[in-house]
């Protein structure tokens, strides 16, 4: 299988604390890969290396290598802003900007320099459809995005990410605050999207990972404990820690 994102003995330190310990992983193109593990396992930190949002943290040291399509993303010559246009991120708490629905989605394309109204409209409609939100908001694109429900806001954030036409979508516990119906809608959208994108889904919800991901990685205290196809991880895990976590013995 084709590798999209890879890390090689990646280590991350916050001050003196090491939060990622020699992570080596290869995430495959056009799949959904689930990252699971209890809090403090380092899964979110790994995400923040891939989108370089880790740049916003103070006192960070990174060792090892991380690459997209075989090209290093830690190299000083990489422009993190360019990178974030290729690597879209959806956060745990939906954070629409305090603007209209339309403006929220047009924000990214506008930053990239798209100003033509018709192409913007096209992008907005297309992105909202892909995020399964179009039918609910098509008549009120100019109302404030803050008026949407939590589930709708999260799909808006997904649509906003899609509008950037990224290659990779990172979702950091996107359904942690959502009801089952909203969660199902996001999951449906993701399953449709994987043919076009490489998706990493960080979640504490092992059932969700089992439902929609093709590959699963289990992290614990900064280490990658197990990584395999979701089927293997959930049916015949090689590590007892993984089994305990999946069965809910700790978390």
């Amino acid at each position: 299988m084709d590798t999209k994102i890879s890390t090689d003995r990646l280590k991350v330190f916050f001050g003196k604390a090491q939060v990622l310990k020699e992570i080596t992983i290869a995430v495959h193109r056009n799949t959904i890969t689930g990252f699971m593990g209890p809090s403090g396992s380092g899964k979110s930190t790994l995400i923040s290396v891939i989108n370089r949002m880790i740049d916003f943290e103070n006192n960070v040291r990174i060792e090892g290598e991380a690459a997209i399509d075989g090209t290093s993303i830690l190299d000083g010559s990489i422009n993190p802003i360019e990178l974030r246009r290729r690597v879209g991120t959806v956060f745990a708490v939906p954070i629409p900007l305090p603007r209209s629905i339309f403006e929220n989605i047009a924000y990214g394309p506008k930053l990239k320099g798209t100003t033509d109204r018709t192409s913007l409209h096209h992008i907005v409609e297309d992105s909202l459809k892909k995020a399964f939100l179009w039918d609910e908001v098509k008549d009120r694109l100019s109302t404030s995005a803050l008026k949407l429900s939590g589930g709708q806001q999260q799909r808006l954030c997904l649509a906003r990410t899609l509008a950037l036409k990224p290659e990779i979508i990172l979702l950091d516990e996107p359904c942690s605050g959502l009801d089952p119906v909203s969660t199902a809608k996001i999951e449906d959208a993701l399953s449709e999207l994987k043919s076009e994108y490489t998706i990493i889904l960080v979640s504490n919800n092992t059932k969700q990972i089992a439902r929609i991901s093709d590959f699963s990685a289990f992290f614990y205290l900064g280490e990658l404990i197990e990584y395999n196809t979701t089927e293997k991880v959930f049916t015949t895990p090689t590590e007892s820690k993984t089994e305990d976590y999946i069965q809910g013995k700790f978390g």
Partner: protein
Amino acid sequence: MIDRTVFKERFVKWVLVAFALSSLLFLFLIFLFILSEGLPLFLKVGVKNIIFGFKWAPTKGYFGIFPMIISSFLVTIGALVIGAPMGLSCAIYLSEYSGKKMKMFLKPALELLAGIPSVVFGFLGVIYIVPLVRNYLGGSGFSLISTSLVLGVMILPTIISISFDALVSVPKTYREGSAAMGATKWQTIYKVIIPSAKSGILASFILGMGRAIGETMAVIMIAGNALKIPGSILDPLRTLTGNIALELAYATGDHRLGLFSTGVVLMVIIMILNYIANFGIKRKIAK
């Protein structure tokens, strides 16, 4: 024993309440006093003749303060034109760009700037700004532009500290959300952070205006105090506050009441500005 501690606690609480309410009492007394002194003349001469009257000759029965109202607004707007961009830029730098060390250095410096007595500003204005304007732009130097320049600097601390508070209170998640969509720092600032902090920034401008319109000492020293509407930025002018401060020492009878009427107008203007500023801030919190 327990009763005694309870009593002590209550006693402290009530003493504090009394002091807290006393500021309200003072405000009320000031209102009452100014209104009781200032209103009779409005009834006697007529609101229109005072507010829209052009001639101020209180010993001859003319109490028109229209030129002063206009002048007060002109210096205030002038101060804002100079102070708002400078203050907002400084606040943006402080909240978005500066490191901890720079902040530790700049914040106390601003507080110091706020603490400089206005007479010192006036003095510096007379010594440096007025001759500068006279030599390079013409006129006497005692002018609208000199006053605006000095007031613009004087309102900086107000604008900076309130804008700064508004900017830093923009949730971190907005910055991250914007950055995650590939926005540069400046794009995030002017497309997300400033619009989110808009009401707080506007409030800072309005409170800055309140400070400028109420400023007296520096203004008397630099404005030239001429009794007319300035025709250009190089003309001298007299503000509402200046009018009161200049004449109160020797005013008697209706003249003195005329100064109180000036005070009533000033107070109403400041109340309106404060109301607008509070309204802006409250709306932001409600959101």
